[in-house]
């Protein structure tokens, strides 16, 4: 094995063009492994001679050897080493590090473990955010770093920071576990930001994702899914057809108490629901869902008032209070005011007579803003349907798929059936 100095010299010399980097890569692969890790402590000063942007690949190999060498990171000057890793992740060149993705992922994992050990998750947020963009081959790809990043955002309570990663639509997933964690943590971030419809989408994906056996992440996601469904829609929909068989069969058994909560909610009586929640608060607390359950409880008032708008044109504050089980008409007034402020109801309060008049939604869908909104939705849908068409085409060219459908089609009669051949895309031939 070459000496360290020679290796560093190679790194500095061969980081110019893509061909040079490829040559460097093969040299590094030869030098990699236990011998490099054994010299871990000696590597650190060499890092100072390299630049993270231009010598990214070499830097990555050396850094990864130090980080995974198993020795205590505080030997390298603890906090400073974290700063080195953080600096590298932010500054490295995406092209170079994509040649060694496993090593890059290892470094990210080490950073996350370290900041969690130091109980300072906020330190890892900016570097991991940069790392996600560097290792993704496109914004549609899900990487293991996504889940780690969202976890740190949750622990540090930097929910808004998590949004930057959640706003991309994901189309490519490699490891199922990444997807489950991404959907679960992403759902929790949206819950924290009170964007319940988006949380519902993500949790729905976690619950209906293909799985041959139930996993713990999906079960926890289901519990939150039930609660968020109640807050947004007032009911929990049944499993769609594409849900896995194992989920449809056994998911509810693991979340029995949540199913009972949703039954109690649908009866519409606040006091009953309140009693149920209090009786089972220990269970909810141990699932870390007590806060969310309380939000479900307070959404009951809102839902009951909304139900009233379907029957009455005007109603007195006293009647509202009595119907939704609020203490005083003043409470009812404050509730209605709050709902008007949040846009959840269209009404006017008349204090003189103590009455509330309910109105129709004044939106006429004629304004420029509404047109823009509809327009951008149509564009997104068009792009999505093009994407679906291309995925469908790719799949129907897949040999494994063709074999399966060919087998199922049964034996040939000897005649060509032109209709059958129409669906086979021409590019296969």
């Amino acid at each position, binding site marked *: 094995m070459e000496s360290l100095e020679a290796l560093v010299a190679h790194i500095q010399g061969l980081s110019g063009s893509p061909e040079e980097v490829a040559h460097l890569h093969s040299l590094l692969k030869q030098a990699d492994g236990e011998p490099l890790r054994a010299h871990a402590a000696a590597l650190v000063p060499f890092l100072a001679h390299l630049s993270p942007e231009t010598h990214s690949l070499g830097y990555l190999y050396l850094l990864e050897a130090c980080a995974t060498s198993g020795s205590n990171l505080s030997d390298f000057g603890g906090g400073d080493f974290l700063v080195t890793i953080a600096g590298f992740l932010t500054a490295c060149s995406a092209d170079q590090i994509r040649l060694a993705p496993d090593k890059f992922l290892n470094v990210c994992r080490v950073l996350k473990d370290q900041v969690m050990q130091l109980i300072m998750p906020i330190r890892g947020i900016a570097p991991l955010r940069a790392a996600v963009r560097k290792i993704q081959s496109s914004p549609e790809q899900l990487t293991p770093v996504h889940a780690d990043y969202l976890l740190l955002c949750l622990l540090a309570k*930097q929910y808004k920071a998590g949004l930057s990663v959640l706003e991309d639509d994901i189309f490519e997933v490699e490891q199922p576990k990444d997807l489950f964690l991404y959907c679960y943590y992403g759902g929790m971030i949206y819950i924290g930001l009170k964007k319940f419809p988006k949380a519902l989408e993500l949790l729905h994906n976690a619950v209906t994702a293909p799985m041959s056996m139930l996993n713990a992440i999906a079960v926890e996601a289901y519990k939150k899914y039930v609660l968020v469904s109640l807050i947004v829609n007032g009911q929990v929909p049944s499993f769609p057809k594409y849900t896995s068989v194992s989920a449809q069969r056994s998911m509810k058994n693991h979340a029995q108490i949540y199913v009972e909560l949703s039954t109690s909610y649908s009866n519409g009586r606040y006091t009953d629901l309140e009693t149920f929640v209090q009786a089972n608060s220990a269970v909810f607390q141990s699932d870390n869902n007590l806060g969310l359950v309380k939000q479900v409880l307070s959404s009951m008032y809102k839902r009951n008032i909304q139900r009233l708008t379907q029957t009455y044109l005007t109603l007195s504050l006293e009647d509202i209070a009595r119907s939704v089980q609020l203490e005083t008409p003043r409470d009812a007034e404050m509730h209605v005011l709050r709902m008007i402020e949040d846009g959840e109801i269209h009404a006017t309060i008349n204090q003189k007579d103590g009455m509330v008049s309910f109105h129709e939604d004044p939106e*006429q869908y004629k304004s420029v803003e509404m047109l823009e909104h509809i327009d951008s939705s149509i564009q997104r849908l068009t792009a999505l349907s093009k994407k679906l068409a291309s995925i469908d085409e790719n799949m129907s060219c897949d040999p494994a798929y063709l074999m399966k459908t060919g087998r199922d089609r049964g034996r040939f009669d000897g005649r060509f059936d032109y209709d059958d051949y129409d669906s086979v895309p021409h590019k296969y031939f």
Partner: protein
Amino acid sequence: MDLSAVQAALSDKSYSALAHLCDELLLQAASKGATTDEWPYSVHLLAHLYINDLNSARFFWKSLPQEVKDTRPELAAVWRIGQCLWNRDYAGVNTAAQGFEWGPDLADFITAFLELQQRIFKLLTSAYSTISVADVAHFMGMSEEDATNYAVQNGWSLDAATRMLTVKKLKAQTNQKLDASKLQRLTECVFHLEH
């Protein structure tokens, strides 16, 4: 730690940009492991309240260590305003804001912040057809006299006998303008549907 950007924003009175700026700087500083003793906590918290981002304000407060909360009375005063906003106790917001000696950094910021009265007035206009003078005064944090004058100036009418104000609704403005690019988009859409 380089806080000059924050100072610049404060002196420019670009308050709405402050929250995002502070958040970013905090993340960058944390990743470099810098200590955050001189961090402008009160400004950061007030910036969140200014853009009405109560969730971020709450989480920011929760993430602060206890000793930071105890040793900074200005920060605690800003948080009291935040609590009132969270509980929608608008009268309380004004009491909390006016009942504290603000340092020079924050004084201008607080005055700008109190302009949220306009927002409350708009809410009252849209939500009520008639409302008592006492309630208006309560929500706006003004005396009954001032509240009545403010309301009458905006077109509300006062019934002195019952101390009730009748609200004048604003006509909703709708813009209806079409331009050529919409036609282009419509064509693309129809083309897509045909194929």
